[in-house]
């Protein structure tokens, strides 16, 4: 074959592949429909939420894009002009990054026009996900707070009455110790309590600690209160031995096929109780024969709980941003809120929809008699504190590194949190050096140039 023939063959191949790629691309929205893309995680609940929106709004076609989740992807793609119309925001740090990158669209006026006042209507625990410097940038998708799940069969077998009401951690400890079972070699067969390590934030709050000073100008995670909270959480693993150590967790992940994380261990019967949100039901409902109960999480010196959740933001660079507001209004409406409660995708974001008979006793799940627990505890839910003066990811990286050492019993809570506070305050100094707007704001608040 001549050179020309080879070249032509290669060229035709490329044309053919281009044609195949073109045929494989998602079909465009039918004429008259407004297409919207939502970057979020893919699960049956999410697909149902999208289907309901498309059913209620026949002039829209909302599609899920689960392949581009993650803040870094959303920001980079949006800045490059190929971002989604809607995306998730998990905390105040993320919102701050989205706003500062110019990606989050200010919807204050759009929501006000629709008669929605987020500070009045939604649970305060998710304010940091949507509010930034007095402006509204989205609407909560759901809200959560953790309580204690318990396995009724384990309690029945041990002859222990089901816990009710609230108690302190000190009152809770004997119960967790009684329900922890170890073999003669000391290897745990079952733990009294399961909790993911990221719950350390709740312990800091309950012991009266804070991440930042109220104006966010200084990290104070090394306060005696914060240290005491993290120390107690550490002690649940190493001193009281009612929770699995990282090694024991890793062992459970491999042997039982329960996946990693407290939710799967609990579903697999490896714990009598577990610290988790109502959203665990999305998974636990599928565990055959699991009889569940729930009661409010024990508290420390302070009766507060860590609230968290997710919000949907609109891409400021999207050409369909005005149309995307429709989705936020849908999230504020009754059909969506009822669906969230029914799916148990945590709690409905709008408070009033959690005070219904339908929420308390869902006819589809008659055994679930614990829904009041989540709603009542939600009233004590405090959001995570953020500081505008530090990059959230950097602060998180610093904290994770130090808390890794505490979790693995390689560093004391005190030493780790002192290091974390010092490094985060250095990061604040760095940020102030780079950002003149923040520098001015900081000086106005403190009269100083750095923490």
């Amino acid at each position, binding site marked *: 074959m001549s*050179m*020309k023939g080879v*070249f032509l063959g*290669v060229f035709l191949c490329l044309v053919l592949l281009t044609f195949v790629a073109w045929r494989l691309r998602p079909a465009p929205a039918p004429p008259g429909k407004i297409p919207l893309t939502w970057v979020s995680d893919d699960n049956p609940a999410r697909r149902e939420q999208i289907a309901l929106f498309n059913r209620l709004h026949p002039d829209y076609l909302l599609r899920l894009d689960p392949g581009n989740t993650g*803040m*870094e992807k959303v*920001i*980079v793609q949006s*800045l490059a002009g190929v971002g989604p119309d809607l995306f998730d925001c998990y905390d105040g740090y993320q919102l701050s*990054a989205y706003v*500062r*990158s*110019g990606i989050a669209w200010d919807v204050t006026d759009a929501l006000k026009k629709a008669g929605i006042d987020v500070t009045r209507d939604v649970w305060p625990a998710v304010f940091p996900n949507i509010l930034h410097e007095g402006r509204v940038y989205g609407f909560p998708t759901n809200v959560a707070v953790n309580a204690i799940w318990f396995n009724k069969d384990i309690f029945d077998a041990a002859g222990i009455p089901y816990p009710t009401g609230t108690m302190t951690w000190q009152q809770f400890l004997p119960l967790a110790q009684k329900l922890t079972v170890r073999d003669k070699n000391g290897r745990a067969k079952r733990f009294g309590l399961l909790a993911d390590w990221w719950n350390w934030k709740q312990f800091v709050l309950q012991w009266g600690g804070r991440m930042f000073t109220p104006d966010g100008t200084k990290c104070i995670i090394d306060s005696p209160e914060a240290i005491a909270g993290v120390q107690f959480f550490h002690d649940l693993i190493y001193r009281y031995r009612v929770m699995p150590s*990282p*090694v*024991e967790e*890793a*062992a459970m*992940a*491999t*042997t039982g096929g329960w996946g990693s994380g407290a939710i799967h261990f609990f579903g697999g019967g490896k714990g009598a109780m577990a610290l988790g949100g109502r959203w665990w039901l999305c998974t636990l409902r599928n565990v055959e024969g699991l009889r569940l109960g729930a009661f409010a999480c024990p508290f420390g010196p302070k009766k507060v709980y860590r609230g968290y959740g997710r919000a949907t933001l609109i891409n400021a660079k999207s050409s369909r941003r005005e149309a995307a507001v429709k989705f936020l209004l849908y999230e504020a409406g009754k059909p969506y809120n009822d669906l969230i409660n029914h799916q148990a995708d945590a709690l409905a974001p709008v408070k009033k929809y959690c005070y219904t008979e339908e929420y308390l006793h869902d006819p589809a799940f008659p055994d679930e008699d614990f829904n009041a627990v989540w709603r009542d505890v939600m009233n004590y839910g405090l959001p995570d504190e953020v500081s505008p003066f530090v*990059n959230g*990811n*950097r602060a998180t*990286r610093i904290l*994770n*590194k*130090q808390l*890794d*050492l505490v979790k*693995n019993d*390689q560093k004391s809570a005190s030493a780790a949190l002192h*290091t974390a506070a010092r490094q985060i305050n250095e990061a604040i100094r760095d940020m102030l050096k*780079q*950002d*003149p*707007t*923040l520098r001015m704001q900081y000086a106005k608040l403190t009269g100083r140039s750095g923490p």
Partner: protein
Amino acid sequence: MSWKTRRLRGHEGAAAMAFLLPNFLGFLVFTIGPVFFSLVASFSNWNLQRTIPFQWIGLENYAKLFHDPDFWLYFVNTGYLMLGLPVAIGGSLVLALLLNRDLRGIVAYRTLFYLPTFTSGVALLILWKALYNPDFGPVNVVINWFLDSLGVNRLVAILTGRELSAPQWLLSTRNLLGIGVEQVRIVAKQWGLGARDAIIIMGIWVAIGGNNMLLYLAGLSNIPQELLEAAQIDGAGRWATFRHVTWPQLAPTTFFIVVMSFIGGLQGGFEQARVMTGGGPAGTTTTLTYYIYTKAFEEFDIGYSCSIAWVLFIIIFVVTLINWKFGSRELNY
């Protein structure tokens, strides 16, 4: 040269250019362009957060880098993970020598050993993560059996008063050199086997049967048969033949493998950190490439991450020059 020949050559040249052009354009747009763009960006404070105004800051990023304790820790991590290179290269040579024989089913053996190289990297990493499970992973099951059943632990207990335990692998910050977690210094408490060593062992397993083995096989097949026969006639044994004929003849291959391994090692660790450890525990498996990613796409500090990338490039360039200067001497046989 006749007019016809010149015309034919002209046509061939045009065809060659046509073949090269798409690749060249792609290289220009997607490699050379971004490389120079990153160099320019490294002299700026470019941050994806728009409240930080763009500024040219000269060498400030580079100056900051040299005072960044994380950079030095991750540089040490990168270097530490390269400690397995000599073993991996030596192992590849031994394997190539074994597979260079005229055995039945040799192609199947070669394919088997090459399998890890063309298997999905992520799948391998997940598999190794399970193997390293401290309590029930097969690695520790064997170690525990060795310690307990063969009485090693009893002996150690009698001698030292303490018992040995299997390593915690990916959960542990310990390492064979006892390098500290937060500072580049030797800490006795850190001595042992941990996440970094686990990654090295896995790397050796992958590399032994990988491209290096193929290169050595190619090198072995290029050794002139008459040299080997001459050695045999002169009465040289297997070791003497290897030492005086095979090894010198493989010098160019070894040189190439060493240079490429150093480059790969300095650029390595990203997949392992991303899939197996998240850079932990406590940052001990964060390498320079993972740090570049973290700075750029998690902290959005593009300017600073570009400066790390260029310092890494300079390190690789200098190491390659050193390799070239000292390694190429051995090629003049």
